[in-house]
């Protein structure tokens, strides 16, 4: 079963890197990260912070786009093109297939993450050499804590991929994209809305907002970009809690996806 998951994951990854969408997004992200050096050189002082800000934001944004746009096509694409008949007519279980597709998407996102992270560090290391107003040598601005923010964003992308995959098991790619983007937006904003609406609204509204907040994945808690860039500490307990949250939530999503997909006709 692990070999089957591996074969399907690797094939999914291969298919993704052949897609124009993926490498266009990747190239665009790398251009953004590299281009941040220009934006930074227009400002005075703290150039490295601007580079870090833009780099982390690019990783988040493009990762999100890849997770949603590739994720929502993972199953529906195979059904539309009927490639799924070839795979599932072999001794491959439905859950195995789903895990393989999910692992393939994570592999794609990981590749994207590695490429962006590497570019970001190269840009940070080189910018004192390029910009005569920046002082310091190659290692002055190479901030290892960036990896913590990238790790958290990757957890967020894992969770978002599971959301996209779940929608992909029962609806078309277009609808799944709409649902995933909505879930992402709600999951980012619900916390803010809850704090804002604390006292002055009716109980019913408050309960509704709270319900939405606890039901939808809370995506905003993965965002520690500002803390990292501005040197604010994040406790290990917070990493532990967030990691646990992501794994629990995505396991639940994958279980539901597997239940739906196992019953589905692939005609």
């Amino acid at each position, binding site marked *: 079963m692990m070999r089957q998951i591996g074969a399907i994951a690797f094939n999914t990854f291969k298919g993704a890197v052949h897609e124009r969408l993926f490498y266009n997004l990747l190239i665009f992200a790398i251009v953004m990260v590299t281009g941040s050096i220009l934006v930074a050189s227009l400002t005075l002082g703290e150039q490295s912070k601007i580079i870090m800000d833009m780099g982390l934001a690019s990783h988040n944004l493009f990762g999100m786009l890849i997770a949603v746009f590739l994720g929502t096509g993972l199953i529906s694409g195979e059904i539309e093109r009927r490639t799924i008949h070839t795979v599932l007519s072999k001794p491959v279980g439905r859950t195995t297939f789903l895990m393989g597709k999910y692992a393939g998407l994570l592999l794609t996102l990981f590749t994207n993450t590695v490429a962006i992270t590497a570019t970001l560090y190269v840009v940070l290391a080189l910018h004192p050499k390029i910009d005569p107003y920046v002082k310091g040598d190659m290692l002055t601005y190479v901030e290892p804590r960036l990896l913590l923010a990238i790790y958290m964003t990757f957890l967020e992308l894992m969770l978002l991929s599971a959301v996209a995959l779940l929608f992909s098991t029962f609806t078309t790619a277009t609808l799944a994209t709409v649902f995933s983007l909505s879930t992402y937006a709600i999951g980012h904003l619900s916390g803010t809305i809850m704090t804002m609406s604390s006292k002055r609204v009716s109980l019913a509204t408050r309960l509704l907002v709270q319900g939405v907040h606890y039901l939808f994945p809370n995506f905003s808690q993965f965002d520690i970009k500002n803390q990292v860039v501005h040197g604010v500490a994040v406790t290990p307990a917070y990493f532990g809690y967030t990691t646990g949250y992501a794994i629990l939530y995505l396991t639940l999503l994958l279980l539901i996806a597997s239940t739906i997909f196992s019953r589905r006709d*692939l005609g």
Partner: protein
Amino acid sequence: MPAIECTGLTKTYSVGLKKHVALDHLDFQVQEGEVFGFLGPNGAGKTTTIKLLLGLIQPTSGAATIFGHPSHTATARARVGFLPESPYFYDHLTATEFLAFCGRLFGLTSVAIHDATLRLLKQVGLEEAAHTPLRKFSKGMLQRIGIAQALINDPQLVILDEPMSGLDPIGRKDCRDLILQLKQAGKTICFSSHIIPDVEMICDHIAILVKGKLIRMGRVEEILDAHQETLEALFIRETQT
């Protein structure tokens, strides 16, 4: 134990609010070692039956087994090879990569995959296209690679949905020869086709399906002896009434 057994197999599709009975209480068996031809006009339910056998869709009622295993289980498909109707495969892979992918899904070793790939590409006449991406394949070439992937695991039962469609006359003959070779090697073959002379030439058993119902089933010689006409004439007469 029969290679294939269907009992009361029924499939209803809902089209809007209406229900459409695609298969209506199908009962049949395919014994090991048989070449079984599945005939019927367009929309008769041949592909639906095959998808049910492979667990790609679920029956509304009734059941199907393959070598005794319920068809929705993965183990039922371990000794099966399948060619889908008008096949389409991952077009980012080359022919060789695709066969390797299929082999891995069956849990074959790299050595076994390598040997089978060489043998099968030769058998279906695709040696020169071994490293061509599938997106550059013609319809007939896709059909050929489809046949090759169906045989990668040296299956005991081979299910082919319209294997001759899209093949040129030589390809059709090669396909007939291949089916007879498989029969000689003791395999069971079940295929659907619209090319009745081919079916008459190579099948020992046939079933004729019309609008989801089996209207005739049996040994080819017996059917022909009883009616004193070609299978084609019989087929046209029986499917039109």
